[in-house]
């Protein structure tokens, strides 16, 4: 079985034409995809502002890769699992994670599902889809996705598991072990490599000498597919094919989505230090949102007014979420000490009590005024 491709699949032309391709999506579904892309862009822009004004500490730009995120996410059911990277906002938003929940995380506040323990963008959701707790170490989630998939497979479930990572992620240990195990176990996993050309400042040619990333599947007996990552339909199509095969017991697929991040690696990064300006120009012309808009317009589903209205609505939603999340205070001090284990062991409880006690003795407001509540 050699399904590996080396030419990226493209469906939506730069002018929005699809050469008669039928996406098999209802108007509502198409507009849901569009809205998800708008949500990402708005979320991105507002987080950038929040960070620049010092109200949140950090964010990860997503501009330019919305089609990959939303196209891939759209191929999954709510019962499937996502093992995301830190640059997968759109997958959560597509599946209906409320922007407010995501904003709680950006502020690390008391209502954040992760209790303010993680840096911003390290989301964790179990609803409405499993969007597994993001970890900073690169690649560790890849074998985890395979293990979770193996569990489902052993129980005879038809759940599919999507593991998403970057071009840099392919050099990690987890990529090697995860794909190798998945190949042997024929696990129902879709490996989505978002090749955006850069791992922070490291260009792909310094990352690996392989002829692209899809071909790396060969090393594990896993078919590799290359797709235009700025083309929502193309990404959706290859992901759907991979998902269908995985669900039917056909094993894993490695997808390489070729895309580009229009921003820095993070809000701490200045890409102008290393990305040649031509690359920004090249990719600006291939903006995934503009391309999808052209399609929707050509299909008679969108016009300038409607698009403007939607954009405003979405921006208002995100802005409201940010305002609401900013109002919520920090997590309680006891959250430093809980969730290390299912039950808090004595030595940790004592450390917490010590901190509360010190706060009481010093009259320090931060340390809480009650007794250690755990």
């Amino acid at each position, binding site marked *: 079985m050699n399904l590996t491709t080396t030419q990226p699949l493209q469906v939506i032309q730069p002018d929005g034409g699809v050469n008669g391709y039928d996406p098999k999506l209802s108007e509502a579904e198409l507009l849901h995809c569009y809205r998800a892309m708008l949500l990402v862009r708005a979320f991105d822009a507002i987080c950038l502002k929040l960070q620049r004004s010092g109200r949140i500490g950090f964010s990860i730009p997503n501009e330019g890769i919305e089609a990959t995120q939303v196209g891939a996410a759209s191929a999954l059911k709510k019962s499937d*699992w996502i093992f995301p990277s830190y640059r997968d906002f759109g997958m959560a938003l597509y599946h209906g994670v409320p922007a407010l929940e995501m904003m709680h995380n950006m502020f690390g506040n008391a209502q*954040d*599902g*992760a*209790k303010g*323990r*993680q840096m911003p963008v*390290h989301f*964790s*959701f*179990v609803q409405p889809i499993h969007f*597994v*707790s993001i*970890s900073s*170490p690169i690649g*560790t989630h*890849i*074998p*985890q*996705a*395979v*293990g*979770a*998939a*193996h*569990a*489902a497979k*052993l*129980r005879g479930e038809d759940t599919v598991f999507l593991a998403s990572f970057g071009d840099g992620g392919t050099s990690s*240990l*987890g990529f*090697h*072990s*995860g794909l*190798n*195990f998945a190949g*042997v176990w024929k696990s129902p996993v879709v490996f989505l490599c978002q090749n955006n050309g850069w791992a922070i400042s490291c260009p792909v040619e310094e990352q690996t000498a392989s002829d692209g990333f899809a071909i790396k599947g060969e090393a594990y007996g896993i078919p590799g597919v290359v797709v235009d990552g700025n083309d929502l339909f193309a990404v959706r199509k290859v992901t759907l094919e991979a998902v269908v095969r995985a669900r039917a017991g056909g094993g894993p697929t490695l997808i390489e989505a070729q895309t580009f991040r229009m921003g820095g690696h993070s809000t701490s990064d200045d890409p102008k230090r290393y990305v040649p300006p031509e690359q920004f120009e090249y990719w600006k012309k291939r903006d995934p949102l503009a391309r999808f808009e052209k399609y929707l317009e050509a299909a008679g589903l969108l016009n300038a007014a409607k698009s403007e209205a939607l954009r405003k609505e979405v921006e208002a939603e995100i802005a409201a979420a940010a305002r609401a999340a900013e109002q919520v205070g920090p997590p309680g001090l006891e959250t430093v000490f809980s*969730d*290390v*284990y*299912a039950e808090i*062991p*004595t*030595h*940790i409880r004592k450390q917490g009590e010590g901190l509360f006690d010190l706060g009481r003795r010093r009259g320090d407001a931060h340390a809480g005024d009650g007794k250690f509540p755990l």
Partner: protein
Amino acid sequence: MANLTLLQAINDGLRTAMKDDPSVLVFGEDVGKKGGVFLATENLQRDFGANRCFDTPLSEDGIVGCAIGMAMNGLRPVAEIQFQDFIFPAFDQIVSEAAKLRYRSGGQYTAPLVIRTPYGGGIRGGLYHSQSGEAYFCHTPGLKVVVPSTPHDAKGLLLAAIADPDPVLFLEPKALYRSVKGEVPEGNYKVPLSTLREARAGTQVTVFCYGAMVPVTLKAAEEAAASGIDTRVIDLRTLLPLDEEGVLEHAKSTGRVVVVHEAPRFCGFGAEISALIAEHAIEYMEAPVVRVTGFDTPFPNTLEHHYLPDHRRVLDALERVAHF
């Protein structure tokens, strides 16, 4: 009750868990047809099928990474690492992932898994088949670290570890695999984690030890008794979370303490015991807290019997501490 070796007790524990809980899986390198290089998993594949007990590719990172995913998704994986010396490729998965998943997800995702691995010297294994790495893991909040020293505890602690909601590193003293035998109850019983075991009663000196150092210490204690030193031997059994209260009570009650382990001394587990005492019981101490440990060198081969603490070195420490 059957009279079993520690190795048989572990096999029995795995069988019992697999029988009682269909979500328990056993996997690792060579655990299937071969039954593990020490035969701890002998016949588990035959008796439970290759879906429940299977071999993996040669990647500890993959073994533990996949185990975490399985555990997240409802299984109770029991992964074997062939030698503790080979656990380091999985260090990132253990320390960054298994140990931190519950915390970082606010309890939304958890990793109830067990990693079993033979540790320690005594088989002429040289640098890479002899190490005792417990301190690396004990410095990692979110993990539990368990070390049995008797067949009874091996089975009971293993069953407790498998039932535990948190990730447990289960270190098996390979030197004792076949050298100790004991009564092992049938069926599913659990020795609660984080409880100490008084392996020998005594009033003058307390020795804290675990794993393969327990019989060594008991032998030293017998010899010390002959010269009038009445030694209490505490088998720690669970190193993390440690029963710190229990440790301090024993330390206070004798006022003289020795700590024994195979691992190198510097920043070894024994340091934590000494530090607890120095912080919370120093005023009860009538003698220095003495550590008897492996040396701060890699593990040698031909001369391993000089590297490993033996009853003579423990006895020497007992005498120093008793007559201080």
